[in-house]
């Protein structure tokens, strides 16, 4: 059964483009032009995922995220403007699964959608092994291997990487990582996380290929890149 995707955008050209893209990838697309019709359609059609533009004329986008989340356990992918970092984080905190930035790349959008749908059907437990290209990380053993080089991960590096691996392909906000890896210590500064990521890059990314494993989502969080 192909998944049903609700596209919420007030611009006809964007809706038409998204319908085109989704149908090409084998999804069924339904459209809403504003928040009111989006809520109604979501209730009736029970889509598997919603592609939600935050800048709707009739409703605040963040409020809509909350209402959609309340109506049913649907995947929400937020489509937002370039510099609205705070808005992205707020949407993610309210339960949105991921986001893409306008103007978006169709392939990237489809990849995000695929990852989000897959995570919904799977339980979010960390895999024992994470692989990407030459890299293999044994999370149980806390060992990273790239070719012949083998390095050990510290406890914090392990905690961070395990959380990212459980959400592979999906953005995880700074706050979520900090809460998970520094549990107990209130308000650990983001700098701690940055240093852990810096050290992780050193251990798992190839020299000259910064960002090939861990993507930095500016002002939002980190994303562990999958093989696909």
């Amino acid at each position: 059964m192909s998944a049903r995707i609700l596209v919420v955008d007030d611009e006809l050209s964007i809706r038409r483009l998204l319908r085109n893209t989704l149908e090409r990838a084998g999804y069924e697309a339904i459209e809403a032009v504003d928040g009111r019709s989006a809520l109604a359609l979501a209730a009736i059609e029970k889509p598997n995922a919603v592609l939600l533009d935050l800048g709707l004329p009739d409703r605040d986008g963040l409020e809509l995220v909350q209402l959609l989340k309340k109506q049913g356990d649907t995947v929400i992918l937020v489509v937002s403007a370039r510099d609205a970092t705070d808005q992205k984080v707020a949407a993610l905190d309210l339960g949105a699964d991921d986001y893409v930035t306008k103007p978006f790349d169709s392939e990237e959008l489809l990849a995000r959608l695929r990852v989000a749908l897959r995570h919904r059907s799977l339980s979010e437990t960390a895999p024992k092994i994470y692989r990407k290209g030459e890299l293999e990380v044994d999370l149980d053993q806390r060992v990273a291997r790239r070719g012949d080089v083998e390095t050990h991960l510290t406890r914090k590096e392990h905690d961070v990487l395990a959380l990212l691996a459980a959400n592979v392909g999906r953005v995880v906000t700074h706050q979520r990582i900090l809460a998970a890896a520094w549990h107990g210590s209130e308000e650990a500064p983001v700098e701690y996380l940055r240093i852990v990521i810096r050290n992780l890059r050193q251990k798992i990314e190839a020299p000259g290929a910064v960002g090939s494993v861990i993507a930095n989502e500016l002002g939002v969080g980190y994303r562990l890149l999958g093989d696909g």
Partner: protein
Amino acid sequence: MGRLKIFLGAAPGVGKTYDMLSDGAARARDGVDVVIGVVETHGRAETEALVRGHEVMPRRAVSYEGRTLGEMDLDAILARAPRLVLVDELAHTNAPGSRHAKRYQDVEELLAAGIDVYSTLNIQHIESLNDVVASFTRVRVRETVPDSILEQAEIEVVDIPPDELIERLKAGKVYLPEEATRALSHFFSKSNLSALRELALRRAAQAVDTQMLDHVRALGVGGTWAGGERIVVAINELPGADGLVRAAKRSADALHAPWTALYIETQRAQSFGEAEHRRLAATMNLATQLGGNVATEPAIAIVDGIKAYLQEARATQLIVGKSHRSRLFELRHGSVVDRLVRETPGVAVHVLPLDAPPVASTRLRARGAWGSRRGYLWTSAMVGALTAAASALFHILDLGNVALLYLLPVMAAATLFGLRTGLFAGIASSLAYNFFFLPPTGTLTVSNPENIISIFVLLGVAIVTSQLTARVRAQADMAAASARTNAALAGFLRRLTPIDDPIALARTICEDIARLFDLRTVVLVPGDTGLVVQAASGPQFRFETMELAAAQWAFDNDMPTGKGSGTLAASDWYFQPVRAGEKVQAVLGLASDDGGNPLRPDQFPLLASLVDQAALALERLRLAEEMRDVEAVRTRDRLRAALLSSVSHDLRTPLTAVMGAAAELRHGATPELIGTIEGEAARLNRFVANLLDMARVEAGALNLKVEAIDLADAVAAAAHDARRSLEGHAINLAVPPAMPLVKVDQQLLHHCLLNLLDNAGRYADPATPIVIEGTHNFGLLKLSVIDEGPGLPPGREAEVFETFRRFEGSDRAVGGTGLGLAIVKAFSEAMGMTVEAANRTDRSGAHFTLCFPAALIVRNAAEGNEI
């Protein structure tokens, strides 16, 4: 500017008020808007009848010492703004608490507001004639008006023959204040009245003369003015000095010459009491009121100071007071007047008697000259000790040597404690010498007349030594005082110079002046609704309405107000306008903690110098700000023009390509057409992003959100977002692990990196590698983007950062907007970073480097912490 007409009379009762009212009524009949500001009718029926024909402004009630006085309501008249106002008794002194001390100052403000004024005045109230009138009437009036106000006025002499005036007086038609009746009965003698009448007529004639001269000068006719007489009057703190100033004013008027009241500040000034300071200030004020200049010259000796000033001012006439020093003093020191006459060739020296005996001066010199009690005790002890020592050693000393020994305490006492203590030492020594050593010992008789010489020598040494020491000490004190002044000024200037923030500048001015004078200070600057306090020394405080009004008045009129000035003197504060160029920039307020006069007269010159420096500093800031504004406007205009041409080209080109390619798609899609659409759309996207960024830079709306970030993170994000521009290039992102975090705005840094990568991707040939390299050497943190493109024109590398800069000959097809690198520079600098452009040295290619100064580098953030 309104016009002033003065009805000048020789004496009370000649009918000035009546004439003024009649004239006013005549003007009112001509349709002029006339009101009465203030008129005293003294119950005379004819006068009251005239008053009834006019609109009378109500008086302002002022309560003073339990009585209620009706003063002219200046503000009401200003608000009413008539064409002509009648103001009786120009010389009137206002009740304390009024805005101005004197009514003529009210009149000046009315004139300044463009209102014509008719006023009345008696001849003995004119400042420069005050002495003359007092000399033959023996009545001195305290209320005077400066001559300068007469010079701008039209004068009408109200004249009746003396006999007639005396008749009127006898008939009770002349109002005299109760308490003055007895004193004035002498005043109204026929001879006095004749003399006063003559004076009035002469003064009126002179005013006409002055006005004629002004007229001639204004027309540029030139003429007798070029005589070049310059008069200097030497003043001092003694009571008669004001007479000298008035005399100088009369001579100056007669010669039409500029004149200066000169005060030579010597050592004496340091022993002045409150009375001397006040008298000196009053004399200086008088000179200013009479239209003269005031100068203060520090010097060791009066004669030297006067000589120096005469030469500097190229004066031709000198007026000095006759010295009251005794013949003996003059014999010893030489007469000041004699030396001046001898040593200032080419200057006519006028010597006038001082009016008052110099009571204060004897007291002055007496004070402190006796020396301290401690000095006498020490001296006695020294003489005693020496006598004891000499007695013990007498068996090996002869008499002459003992006398020599006694020189020691004499010289010591004279050097340390001054003349009188030195003389005391001389007398004590000679007595001790006489009593204990000169035969016959144990008596004060001297058997050998030769020994009398020894006694005189001891006394002589005391005198000579103390004189020499006193002079050296005086010179040292003068030099020290002068050095202190200079040091204070230099220090003030040095502290003001590096400040480029108005509030910091005001604070420094406040603190420095407060410290130098030991006062509370405040600096007020114009705000949206009147003056506001910009800085103040000491604890916070609030100004009352009175203080603010005084400060505002000082600001509006460029005149000092408040305590110690003639205007709004009831305030505890003294306000000094700070003027630079044409405009008053600020007002400096001074107040002493005990509520007394903030400044002694001798401090005014230093304050004036400090205020000048402060004004220059304020002016410098204002000019700098203006320059910045002008530069900003110019830059904005240039950018706007460049933007328009850029937008028309850089937006239309990709749009044309996209529209064309899309139309072509109808005939079948080719990968090339699709690539064109994608590429051009991406280019449009970057251009719009850059336009938005540039707009933010231009609007100054870069609200930095600084946080500690890792450069590898930043590079990863940038490389991801710029992947389309970098397509086909081998990317080498080499950021070593040991790089510390940096404190920047990550969005701005992201855009810097995007633009640098975009730039590299656009200019470098496809398939050539692009390297992002982080280095951390010797505390310098750098992030470089290195390509293998054609590089930059040698010698013009830095120009690449100019807005809309695209080098001639560079390939337009690569589609630069000329905005990207300008944004890199603007963003980098906003974050405190620098950006450099260079050509590669190993091969062709450009090398852009972002440099993070040490201040942005985070040291040991959480390093080794629980991570």
